[in-house]
């Protein structure tokens, strides 16, 4: 068993990524509440955690569950626009990014989470799979479907069915 590092190192190393993922998943306005819930849950469970080899994946798994809880609690309420200008890698035009993240917020839950984990937290497929509790292949599929849908929404590809009408 790997010795657990001081909890503060999890905050130092991963708090920004968890916040970025949550902004993508639930929108800026609710991200902080989910952030608090995520780290309080992590802190509660931490001493009993048997394996310290993937703490980042563990935290993102909890964040993902908290985002799902949040969506369940809010029913089908439309998602607020995610503002991601502060995210690492955000380009000079934050408005364009906001538009994209609003579309991400409208994706089905698995696709939304996969896209947020991939582009919000820069996770590889294996870690997205661990966070979502599915196989890497399924994670890749969710991501692919999500990206395809986004491309269609953004007009990069003709949306299915439109041409026939």
């Amino acid at each position, binding site marked *: 068993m790997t010795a657990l590092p001081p909890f503060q190192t999890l905050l130092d190393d991963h708090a920004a990524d968890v916040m970025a993922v949550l902004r993508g998943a639930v929108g800026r306005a609710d991200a902080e509440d989910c*952030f*608090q819930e995520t*780290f309080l849950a992590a802190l509660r469970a931490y001493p009993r955690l048997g394996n310290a080899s993937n703490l980042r994946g563990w935290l993102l798994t909890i964040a993902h569950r908290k985002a799902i809880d949040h969506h369940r609690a809010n029913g089908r309420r439309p998602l607020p626009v995610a503002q991601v200008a502060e995210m690492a890698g955000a380009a000079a035009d934050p408005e364009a990014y906001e538009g994209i993240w609003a579309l991400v917020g409208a994706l089905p839950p698995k696709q939304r989470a996969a896209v947020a984990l991939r582009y919000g937290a820069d996770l590889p497929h294996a870690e997205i799979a661990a966070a979502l509790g599915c196989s890497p292949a399924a994670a890749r599929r969710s991501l692919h479907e999500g990206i395809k849908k986004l491309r269609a929404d953004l007009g990069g590809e003709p949306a299915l069915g439109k041409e026939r009408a």
Partner: protein
Amino acid sequence: MRAALKRLADRADAEGLLDVAYATTDSPFGPLLLAATPRGLVKLSLPTYDSDEALEELAHRVSPRVVEAPARLDEARRQLDLYFDAKLTAFDLPLDWQLTHHFRRRVVRAIHRIPYGQTRSYTQIATSAGNERAVRAAGTACGANPIPIVVPCHRVLRSGGALGGYGGGLPMKEALLELEGALQSR
């Protein structure tokens, strides 16, 4: 993000999840690391020691729920500031002795009773810890004191008055004794 982390520390504290809260504070000798459990101050790490190692030791020996939460250490920091300004002669802080056991705990508790501005020999400390022959063990216990300054191991000298050792370095030991006016009286 800083505000979010502050709120998190406050909520964790309110929920009893802050097993070890820590903060750093400035001193004339460099930054000190302070750590407290809900029972009291459990560790003071001198500038000569690596803070990361001290935090890892706390995670391993006390609880991995180690979080930077300066509010919990405000009173200790206040008293230390006054002490370094020679405006405080006795710390009034709850202490948690859990990092020291058996004979060593008796030694550090004996050291804790040495009044401000006075000194004792390692032999005297061994005696008040209940074993006058365990002078060497008493010296080792001084070196392993988890809460130096507050538990004033700098007030323990060799018989005859030589400084002996100090984890923070001998110049620091000498400066603390000078601050307390203990060097002239020897």
